[in-house]
């Protein structure tokens, strides 16, 4: 792969592609996009300059609000009012797109520059078949007949790996899974063989195994068509796996551009270093997760000096007063950085403290705090004349009555000890959130037992449950929708105390202030309303609210999934600190394996409503592996370009929980399937070693231990890749 630096692209000798042009395919110069709101205009993209050659992939990274998407949409001139491009040039294949008429731009969009959007669930028109949506793109830009366009559309669906494309072309988007929809979006993007693809967080909304497949697909399509890709992402793991060079954005500015390897080995801007450090590596142990403190400044109220100075550990007086530095070459390297100290700083060493101690040992000799036994939660799959009852005439004679259920949770058991964090991890639809809601009796369990300090929760009346709620709290993924928008947060937290007779009056006010300070906000925050806080701060409020009643257990349902990586680590550290102080227990639900790795003591890997593997973090993350755990771990992209992982790609998608596969639920996709036994016998969750490490698989322990250490296998594969 050729990876030229922006500045000396004219000296490039390895330019590939159909045209022998020496100039870069895309050359963005001083692009400025403003949003005119009531006050002063907000500059969302401030003098951004970079270039991209044919066939190259450039990453654009940064926290949310950094201006990545605005920059990308400005290139296509798709900025909605009140936004406006107020300066610069976007030279694409020798022509400035900002000079073009709207009509000329329409001929370019989808044809020469195409976009792959972020969310596969909302980016396809629900009332048009996927075929119509691909065909209309082809017919818009190519002079072909309807039937030819249809052929081309089927071909493009084939190319992106949609099985039975010819039959599925007339299906509607909702009939496809998320991963398949993302493939349709990729097919639309590539349908007119564009020179440039702008991929805006193309895998953010996907599960990790699907993400791996889509990234591979993008790479493959790109190589085949020699397309340039501008990859917008907040995930440095994705960048490390896919990009040739990278631009880092902060508060509307490009603060660093560099070759991929240089960026990771020797970042030149402190923000880049901080971004890299804020990602917990799956195979490292930390006492405290590395964080990137503070938040991006409000774009309408930027600091007087360098925008990053307030968060920068290396900031000096000159940084704070000297205005925002321009992006300049650093020494004789190919990197550019917007930092006045870039020449002097050596940021090649990670500042993250990587301590080997990991999590403290949990005393599991006593009684568990919380115990779940054979929990089942079935939802009625009612859609026939008779609800969920179906008559079947299979046996002849009288029809037999059959009830149909979605088995969301099917026979799940685990326990949690005081001071312990137990994780539930799995892809969307595996039933982990249903477990969380059912154990708290927010949903009625179909069957099974749940004990809290010996109390049978499954047997309690609603009054007793309500008083138990004081001991068991829940934090949801989206704090914005779980906090009452019409009340100041002090009242929200205070009410919880009153309801459970913990404190009233002056004492209550004091405790609210203490709690807010405990979660890293100020006591004065009590009088503010939820919308006045950022996403991370709202989650802090939600934690304070949960802590208000002094619970012994908090169920955390994807508590950091909606947050930026930097904020994620802050929240996880906060949860850990609170646990160290109060010996509270957590049931932690997440689809993010990296997060689970760093907050949990034990973890249950769930697949189709069942536990596939359960054990201590160290045991689950090392051999023997359940084949599903192994593929999940292999799919996590590492934020290290030298460690291209050898991914185990799963075939197909998760089967329907209404008609789960016979035998082992994972057998339809298992890369290590033995044969008939997997289809007929349901494997038991059996001990595979000491320390209560259990796996539900027919394979022998030896067979599950082939990859004796996950990390080593990875390095080996990295070597093979390099020798290719």
């Amino acid at each position, binding site marked *: 792969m050729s990876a030229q630096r922006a500045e000396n692209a004219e000296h490039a000798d390895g330019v590939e592609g159909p045209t022998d042009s020496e100039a870069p395919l895309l050359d963005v110069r001083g692009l400025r996009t403003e949003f005119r709101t009531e006050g002063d205009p907000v500059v969302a993209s401030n003098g951004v300059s970079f270039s991209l050659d044919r066939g190259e992939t450039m990453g654009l990274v940064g926290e949310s609000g950094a201006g990545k998407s605005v920059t990308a949409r400005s290139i*296509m001139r*798709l900025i909605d009012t009140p936004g406006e491009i107020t300066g610069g040039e976007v030279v694409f294949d020798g022509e400035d797109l900002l000079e073009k008429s709207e009509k000329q731009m*329409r*001929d*370019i*969009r*989808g*044809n020469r520059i*195409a*976009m792959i*959007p*972020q*969310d596969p669930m*909302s*980016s*396809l*028109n*629900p*009332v*048009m*078949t996927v075929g119509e949506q691909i065909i*209309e*793109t082809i017919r*818009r*830009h190519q002079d072909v007949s309807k039937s030819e366009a249809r052929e081309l559309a089927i071909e493009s669906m084939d190319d992106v790996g949609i099985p039975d494309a010819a039959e599925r072309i007339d299906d*509607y988007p*909702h*009939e496809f899974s998320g991963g398949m929809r993302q493939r349709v*979006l990729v097919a*639309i993007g590539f349908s007119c063989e564009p020179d440039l693809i702008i991929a805006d967080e193309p895998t953010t909304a996907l599960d990790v195994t699907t993400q791996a497949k889509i990234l591979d697909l993008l790479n493959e399509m790109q190589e085949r068509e020699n397309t340039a890709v501008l990859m917008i992402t907040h995930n440095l793991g994705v960048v490390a796996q896919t990009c040739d060079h990278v631009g880092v954005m902060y508060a509307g500015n490009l603060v660093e551009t560099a070759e991929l390897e240089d960026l990771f080995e020797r970042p030149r801007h402190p923000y880049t270093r901080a971004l890299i450090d804020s990602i917990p590596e799956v195979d490292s142990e930390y006492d405290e997760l590395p964080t990137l403190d503070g938040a991006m400044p409000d774009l309408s109220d930027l600091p007087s000096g360098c925008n990053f100075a307030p968060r920068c550990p290396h900031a000096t007086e000159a940084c704070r007063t000297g205005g925002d530095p321009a992006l300049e070459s650093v020494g004789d390297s190919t990197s550019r950085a917007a930092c006045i100290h870039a020449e002097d700083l050596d940021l090649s060493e990670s500042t993250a403290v990587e301590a080997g101690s990991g999590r403290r040992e949990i005393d599991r000799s006593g009684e568990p705090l919380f115990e779940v036994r054979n929990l089942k939660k079935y939802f009625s799959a009612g*859609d*026939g*004349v008779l609800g969920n009852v179906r008559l079947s005439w299979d046996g002849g004679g009288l029809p037999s009555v059959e009830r149909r259920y979605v088995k969301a949770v099917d026979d799940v058991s685990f326990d949690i000890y005081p001071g312990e964090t137990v994780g539930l991890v799995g892809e969307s639809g595996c039933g982990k959130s249903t477990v969380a809601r059912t154990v708290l009796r927010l949903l009625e369990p179909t069957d099974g037992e749940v004990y809290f300090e010996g109390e049978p929760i499954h047997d309690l009346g609603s009054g007793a449950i309500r008083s138990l709620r004081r001991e068991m709290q829940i934090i949801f993924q989206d704090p914005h929708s779980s906090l009452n928008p019409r009340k100041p947060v002090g009242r929200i937290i205070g009410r919880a105390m009153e309801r459970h007779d913990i404190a009233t009056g002056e004492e209550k006010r004091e405790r609210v202030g203490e709690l807010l300070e405990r979660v890293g906000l100020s006591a004065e925050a009590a009088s503010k309303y939820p919308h006045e806080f950022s996403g991370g701060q709202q989650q802090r409020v939600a934690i304070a609210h949960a802590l208000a009643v002094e619970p012994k257990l908090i169920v955390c349902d994807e508590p950091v999934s909606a947050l930026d990586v930097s904020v994620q680590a802050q929240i996880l550290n906060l949860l850990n600190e609170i646990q160290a102080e109060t010996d509270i227990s957590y049931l932690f639900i997440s689809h993010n394996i990296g997060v689970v790795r760093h907050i949990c003591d034990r973890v249950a890997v769930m697949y189709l409503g069942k536990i596939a593997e359960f054990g201590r973090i160290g045991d689950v993350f090392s051999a023997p592996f359940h084949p599903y755990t192994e593929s999940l771990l292999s799919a996590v992209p590492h934020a290290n370009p030298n460690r291209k992982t050898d991914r185990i790609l799963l075939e197909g998608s998760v089967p329907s929980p209404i008609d789960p596969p016979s035998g082992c639920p994972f057998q339809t996709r298992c890369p290590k399937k033995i044969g008939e036994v997997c289809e007929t016998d349901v494997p038991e969750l059996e001990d595979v070693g000491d320390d209560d490490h259990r796996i539900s698989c027919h394979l022998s322990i030896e067979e599950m231990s082939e990859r004796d250490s996950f990390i080593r296998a990875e390095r080996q594969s990295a070597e093979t890749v390099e020798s290719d």
Partner: protein
Amino acid sequence: MYNYVIRRVGFMAVTLFLVTLIAFAVTNILPGNVALVILGPNATEESLAALQAQLGLNRPLYVQYFDWVLGLLQGDMGQSLRFGEPVAALIAERLPRSLLLAVTATLIAVALSIPLGVYAAVNQNEAPDLTASMFAFVGISMPIFLWGLVFILIFAVWFNLFPTGGYVSPTEDLVGSLHRLVLPASAMGFALTAYIMRMTRSSMLEVLSAEYIKLARAKGMSQRVVVLRHALKNAVIPVITVIAFQFSYAFGGVVVLEEVFFWPGIGRLTLTAIQSRDIPLIQGCIIVVALIYMISNFAADLLYAYFDPRIRYGGEE
């Protein structure tokens, strides 16, 4: 889909049963005595009693009810006391006229309101949008009959373009019939337009900010294609319910509007029935109007499925 239709028809039957109960109860609570209305204030006690016995009004209420429901099931709605004709025949004569009026009005409303709503949404907060919103506000604030009076004043009295009222059967005189249909139908259509337009506008605004609209633009689609092909078909889905609701509302509105325009439809029939305490006729009218209401909502749900492929009632896919 098949399952869904069966279930819906089942629900409709249950609803209809409840409607018969209510209709029967209400008409029997109404003050006034049929025999007295028929015979006049000078009738003797004996003749009143004799007439009541003849009409079967002295039987226990539950007997009267079952008698009536049994008749209904066989299509017999009883005998109108006032007209001395079968209720079913009276309704069969009037109902098509009212339907003609309500359907035409709804068509006019849809033809006006959807393009206007789309136009207003596309030009959000600009002059056309503000004008249309203002118009909608006035439209919603005015009751249907007031629109009727305004239309009569302008088009019949001032400009003398259309007759002030009356009805001619389209099978006898098509032109004359249409001529008389224009004013009442447009008056009612205008009253309905406002609400449907507002709904179309807000639904359209929501759809236009959807991700798939952004993608359509990024594919190089023109504004016309984005609005008409991508946005409208999505935006119209919630509007369908509103249209069905407005149609039912129009059917309620005809009671007064028919009086304004001397339109001999089911509305005027109901009024006459109530004035003369003609219990079987009142009951018959209630049942028929309720049935129309249910059918139009059912039709809306089926249309929903047609426009929104995600809804395949009870589907297995």
